[in-house]
């Protein structure tokens, strides 16, 4: 049986025919992964909080609109959503708009990926926010209203501050997921970390795929774990004494 020729130094080797090194490709990839994930997360947090809150309001129309939003973005696979945004949308738009998307839009792959991943994640964030709100006893809202708050004020000063604290643990998972899901962006050509891995292990340095895949896995592990620790820190800092949400220790 043959023996695999291990060569962990492969990432420090120069790319044949260029002045670049493989580790530089991985660093570039890491940069795009972080950029895509963070942009998507900001979008997901804003939209998700809004939609999640709307799902709990008394107005039936607003609530069902928010439900439609969640079901739409939650039930279509992420890779299909990115594909739709990137390949299908420009074809169904008016010709000039479609042409703009294909030819003149700045960084089309990155922007499409960040928005697509952000919308997908926002549906998941919305569900976490709704869960947090539903977990509060109705007495909290009623107490707010009895104190003379309007409904928006009750949400702003009573319900949401408590709800967000409750959902920090599942939100941590979503925040970690957004980094891992960003790998799907390679499907529309974002040159992120998994893309660079495929690029290197494809035709460029086909001799040592296992080393490159292992190194990339470890980078993802470190990324996700850093997010986990950051969220644990936030959870401790925002803890309200006497309430259940105080983990992360």
């Amino acid at each position, binding site marked *: 049986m043959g023996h695999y020729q291990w060569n962990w130094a492969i990432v420090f080797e120069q790319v044949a025919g260029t002045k670049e090194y493989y580790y530089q490709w991985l660093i570039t990839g890491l940069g795009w992964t972080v950029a895509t994930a963070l942009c998507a997360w900001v979008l997901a947090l804003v939209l998700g909080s809004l939609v999640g809150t709307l799902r709990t309001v008394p107005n039936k129309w607003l609530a069902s609109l928010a439900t439609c939003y969640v079901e739409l973005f939650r039930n279509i696979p992420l890779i299909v959503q990115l594909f739709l945004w990137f390949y299908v949308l420009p074809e169904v738009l008016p010709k000039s708009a479609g042409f703009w998307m*294909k030819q003149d839009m700045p960084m089309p792959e990155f922007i499409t990926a960040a928005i697509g991943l952000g919308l997908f994640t926002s549906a998941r964030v919305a569900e976490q926010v709704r869960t947090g709100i539903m977990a509060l006893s109705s007495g909290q809202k009623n107490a707010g209203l009895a104190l003379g708050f309007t409904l928006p004020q009750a949400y702003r000063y009573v319900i949401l501050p408590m709800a967000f604290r409750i959902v920090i643990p599942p939100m941590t998972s979503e925040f970690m997921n957004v980094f891992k899901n960003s790998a799907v962006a390679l*499907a529309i050509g974002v040159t992120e970390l998994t893309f660079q891995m495929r690029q290197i292990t494809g035709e460029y340095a*086909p001799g040592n795929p296992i080393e490159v895949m292992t190194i990339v896995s470890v980078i993802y592990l470190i990324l996700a774990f850093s997010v986990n620790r950051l969220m644990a820190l936030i959870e401790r800092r925002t803890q309200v004494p006497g309430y259940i949400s105080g983990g992360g220790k």
Partner: protein
Amino acid sequence: MRKILILSAALATAYMGSVQAEELTGTLQKVNESGIITIGHRESSIPFSYLDDKQKPVGYAMDLCNQVVAAVKKKLNKPSLVVKLVPVTSQTRTALMVNGTVDLECGSTTNSKERQKQVAFSDSYFVTSVRMLVRADSGIKSLDDLNGKPVVTTTGTTSDRYIKQNEQGHSIDVKNVYAKDHAESFLMVETGRAAAFVMDDVLLASLIANNKNPKDFAIVGPALSVEPYGIMMRKDDPQLKRLADETLSTLYKSGEVNKIYDKWFMKPIPPKNITINLPMSEKLKEAIKNPNDVGI
């Protein structure tokens, strides 16, 4: 004295072992003992190695490989040898070969010096040229016409490198964009996101053949790179390597290879009965006349 006896007994055993090993070594020995030979195939490497409408791997490389398997059966005198088929991808093929999961890889693998550090290749059975696919009405004829335009490459391939290398020579500015597989790269050109798709000419030809408007596309420009394909096997396995090379040589000398080539490149092929229509290149004729396993 007793020590010497034991030592000589051990040596004798080792010697007998090595005599037997000389008859069958490496993969052939393994196949002989297990009664199974495992072929690694691709799932969509048309027309080399892909799944037909019955999900059975077929293709030009599969036909050649089956001849090698027939030769193995004959050599081992095992007509009932079990042939196991395992799908591989461009990312997994090397690792699965080296760890012994597959014994022969029959796909569209370039025999490269880089790969030869891990695996070995049979004599070349195909030679591909890297060229560019453009829309026929784009007016693009040469690399210079790509200046300032987006050019798509499939992830994991080296075509973007060839453009870069030519960029230096031609001093043109190309925007590299990427798609995850060949079908999407083609879609990028079809929808006007990219001006050109740079890839092996045979893959470009089969993509065009499968489109509903083949006349809308053209393959243009010079060969940016010429790459030989070989059957991949494990390194330091001279018996199997010799058997594979002899099998190919026989097919080459008898002209049988031309029939197999025509079957996959000049006639309708499954699953859609489309003809790729790519006559045999001069480079391939040369490789058939003088079989060799020189990589790039």
